[in-house]
């Protein structure tokens, strides 16, 4: 079993829709949770990170962590064609020197 599982999609939604991207993880010691966005032929860029359970909001993006169910979510409101990318969730243990990534979900927002 992978430590971080993510549905690879692809996911295709119309412009303006609310998008929900999800991951599950198996290691209870994970403390930091990140979302990276990767445009085609580019390296991943950090979108958001959270520490511990709860919600974190940044503009149209909300990251949510539920440690009790080991579930990580990213919500995108008012989705735009420019949000079309692959979204990768990642986790790590405090003090550990490596991230564990999900497979990535390919998202397309249709105008």
């Amino acid at each position, binding site marked *: 079993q992978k430590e971080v599982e993510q549905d690879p999609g692809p996911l295709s939604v119309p412009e303006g829709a609310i998008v929900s991207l999800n991951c599950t993880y198996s290691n209870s010691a994970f403390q930091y949770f990140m979302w990276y966005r990767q445009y085609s032929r580019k390296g991943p860029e950090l979108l958001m990170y959270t520490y511990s359970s709860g919600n974190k909001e940044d503009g149209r993006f909300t990251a949510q962590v539920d440690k009790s169910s080991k579930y990580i979510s990213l919500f995108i409101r008012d989705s735009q064609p420019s949000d079309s990318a692959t979204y990768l969730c990642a986790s*790590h243990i405090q003090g550990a020197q490596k991230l564990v990534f999900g497979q990535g979900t390919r998202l397309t927002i249709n105008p």
Partner: protein
Amino acid sequence: DVKVTQSSRYLVKRTGEKVFLECVQDMDHENMFWYRQDPGLGLRLIYFSYDVKMKEKGDIPEGYSVSREKKERFSLILESASTNQTSMYLCASERTSRQETQYFGPGTRLLVL
């Protein structure tokens, strides 16, 4: 802004060739990483380094080696390239005190024929 650069965007090599991929970061980060990214498999860690001349194996180190002679530079070496090493290679760096934030380079697409 943090900048992580990689020496090549695209490379084509032949089986058996020695391949060098270079990564440079300009933010004095202690930690540097090499990943490969393949469809359906996501990012997999090959090697990382937390200091000059220090290296640690990641999840898939076989067939690779690394070198970190200077803090800003981390090189990945394929001693004898094979077709199953055709992949996208990504370098990343982070500050030890901010391990929630890894910064990635643009990637090198390597094709081994």
